[in-house]
Each structure stands twice: as C-alpha cells, then as structure tokens.
C-alpha cells in the first residue's frame, strides 16, 4: 500500500504561490529536525524546481497544474520530494547545470538543486508532463511522522 505523504498539494503555476509553498516546506523540514539553514536550502531547491516548471514547462502561463508531494522515509533516512506537472516535455539532456565561470544571469536553478539535494532525477511522465524526484538525507534526530503513525494505527 502506498504511503501517505507528509505533504500533498496541487496548485496553479503562479509565482505568487511560491511563498506559500516555501512556508509549508520550511515548517515541515523544521518539524523533521532540519536546522533553519538546511530548511531554507530545501525551500530554495523546491522553489527553483517550481520556477523551472512555471517558466520553462508552462511558459509562464498561470493556469498550469503542479503537484507536489513530500514523503518522509525514516527507514531509508531520507526526505523525498516529488514534483509533477502536465506541461510540455523538455529534452532531459538540456536539464543540467551550466558553467559557473560564465557569469551571466539565469541558468542557476539546476545547479542550486544539485548542490542542495542529495539527488535529483527528471523524467517524462507517460501521461504527459514532467516528473522530478529529489531527495535529501534526513537529520539523525528526525522524529517519526505522526500523521503516518496515526494512519498505520488506524489500519491495524
């Protein structure tokens, strides 16, 4: 049976919603034991991924749909963040960090994601659109997710 995510939200591809998403991610990461600095960086990685969807996937159209799911896998010791959209599929080979020696505006998002997260995998969805799965190692002090404990208890 698929595990219930800690956070599951679907929203429009509007930049004005990014602050709301960051606040949710920041709060969740803090609860999972990340330091404020680490939480802020995870927020940045999610923000950058969402910006890429809005700008490059939906060409800044405000009516695209984005789904964000965050799973805490304490048994694997990692936080997984899944972002899916119904936008155009981009060539996977074009999603890469650029040469930072070339100081110019833009193109930093993928680099920031790669630096902050432990891994990030992009793929085309069979239904159309893109999927990004990225994960980060949980702090050793992470508390178990209460929501999943309650679900598990209810099903036993």
């Amino acid at each position: 049976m698929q595990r219930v995510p800690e956070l599951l939200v679907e929203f429009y591809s509007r930049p004005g919603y990014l602050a709301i998403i960051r606040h949710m991610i920041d709060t969740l990461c803090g609860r999972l034991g990340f330091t404020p600095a680490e939480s802020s960086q995870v927020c940045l990685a999610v923000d950058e991924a969402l910006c890429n969807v809005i700008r490059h996937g939906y060409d800044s159209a405000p009516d695209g749909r984005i789904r964000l799911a965050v799973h805490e896998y304490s048994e694997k010791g990692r936080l997984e963040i899944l972002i899916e959209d119904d936008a155009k599929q981009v060539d996977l080979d074009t999603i890469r960090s650029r040469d930072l020696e070339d100081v110019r505006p833009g193109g930093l998002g993928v680099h920031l994601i790669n630096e902050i997260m432990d891994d990030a995998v992009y793929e085309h969805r069979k239904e159309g659109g893109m999927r990004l799965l990225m994960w980060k190692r949980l702090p050793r002090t992470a508390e178990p997710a209460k929501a999943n404990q309650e679900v598990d208890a209810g099903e036993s």
Partner: protein
Amino acid sequence: MQGNHEMQVNTEQRDGATIVRPEGDVDLSSSSTLRTSLQEAHESTEGKLIIDLANVKYMDSSGVATLVECLQLSRRSGTTLLLCQLHERVLSVFQIARLDGVFDIVPSLDEALAH
C-alpha cells in the same frame, strides 16, 4: 523563513551614492519589480550604487540573476556596485552559486558608503 512576501523597493541618495533597499522576499513573483528599480537607479546614480539587502530574508535564482544583470550594467557604465547587509541565508545562495567572489559584498551600509 516566513517574512514579508510583498516586496517593496525604496531608493535614497546619500553621500554621492544611490542606495536601493528592497524589502521582502525576492523570488520569481517579485524579481521584475527589483529589476525595474535597479534600472531606474542606474539612470540616476553618479558613481556608486549600493543594494542594501538588510530587509531581504529570501532570494532565489531569479533574484540573483537580477543582481547579475545589474552587475553587468554597472561594469558597462563604470558604476561601482556594492551589496551590503546580506542575511546568512541570502549570502548562502551567492556562495552556492559561486558568486560571492564576483560581487563586492560588505557587511554594513557604513562600509559600503565608505568603500
């Protein structure tokens, strides 16, 4: 992390410098406002442009890109560009992007004015 998400930009002339003070998060929804303010500041500045980031607690790559554009504009026009009072989290974005050595970043506004 949570802060004022509606960004405002104030501009002041002092001691021969133009000081630009964005207030709030600089992200995809607000970086264009900052870009416009910086372009206007460039037109009115005589020699030194200071971007005081004391009231910016969050900045994403669109904000960084806006500042890189400003840096390029400064280099072309011969203007001195300084960033000051960066919060640790904002500074860390520059560090991850390896831009902390590209910009002139000073701790305080006084140091920026005296630079």
